[in-house]
């Protein structure tokens, strides 16, 4: 097992765990947590390829990961704002109970 393959397997496992969390939890906040885990697993892939790939001095993978972290932060802020507003409106964060688009 090469180092890069080990990192990729760990990232795949984290991605699968995040996906399972996003697909199986009822609470909307826990779904967002699962999405954050998936984004982090992708970042681990980017950094691992940057470290073990050719031309690390070009910083491509590292920059991609840094921009991805920034986008994930924006996504978390908007997502949690939406969850708070939905909770204020529907008095629940249970996704199984949210079955109407009309307020």
């Amino acid at each position: 097992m090469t180092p890069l393959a080990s990192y990729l397997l760990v990232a795949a496992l984290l991605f699968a765990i995040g996906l399972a969390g996003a697909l199986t939890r009822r609470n909307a906040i826990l779904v967002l947590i699962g999405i954050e885990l998936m984004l982090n697993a992708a970042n681990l892939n980017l950094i691992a390829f940057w470290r073990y790939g050719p031309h690390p001095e070009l910083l491509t993978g590292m920059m991609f990961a840094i921009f991805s972290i920034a986008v994930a932060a924006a996504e978390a802020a908007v997502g949690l704002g939406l969850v708070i507003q939905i909770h204020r409106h529907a008095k629940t964060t249970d996704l199984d109970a949210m079955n109407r688009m009309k307020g």
Partner: protein
Amino acid sequence: MSFVFYMLAALSVTGALAAVLLKNTVHCALALTVAFAGLALLFLDLDAQFAGFAQILVYIGAVAILVVFAILLTKGSETPKDGVFSRTWLVGLVIAAGVFAVLGWAVIGSIRVLPQEKAVPTVTVLQIGNALVGRYVLPLEIVAVLLTAAMVGAVIVAMHEKEGEK
């Protein structure tokens, strides 16, 4: 692979598993912080110091706190009576297991052709800063606009509408 890698991988995976499996939502947020910390240490182990510390600042410092705020504001810490998993949890689990199987199969199958540079890259913060304002200046500006728009949007979305003031 080194002992450090296995320790950090176990820490991250355990934290992630606890974050999606625990019943109490606040405990989930704490486990998520552990997973983020394990990932930041993995970044440091990969000689990506800047990304590792950015991970600690952004995820442990901001996103985890934001998640805790959202949980407490929505009373999400109360465990629902009819379970924490949705009715279609089996379908979700099967999809996740299938995705992991495909990803793992792809990684194992391509071990021979994966690059493996031995040399440790020496990247200084000066180089990262130069790259950010040189080659990557356009993405940097776009991310700045995106973050501003996201913050304004989050505030507007979560702002309380007073009655009769629509």
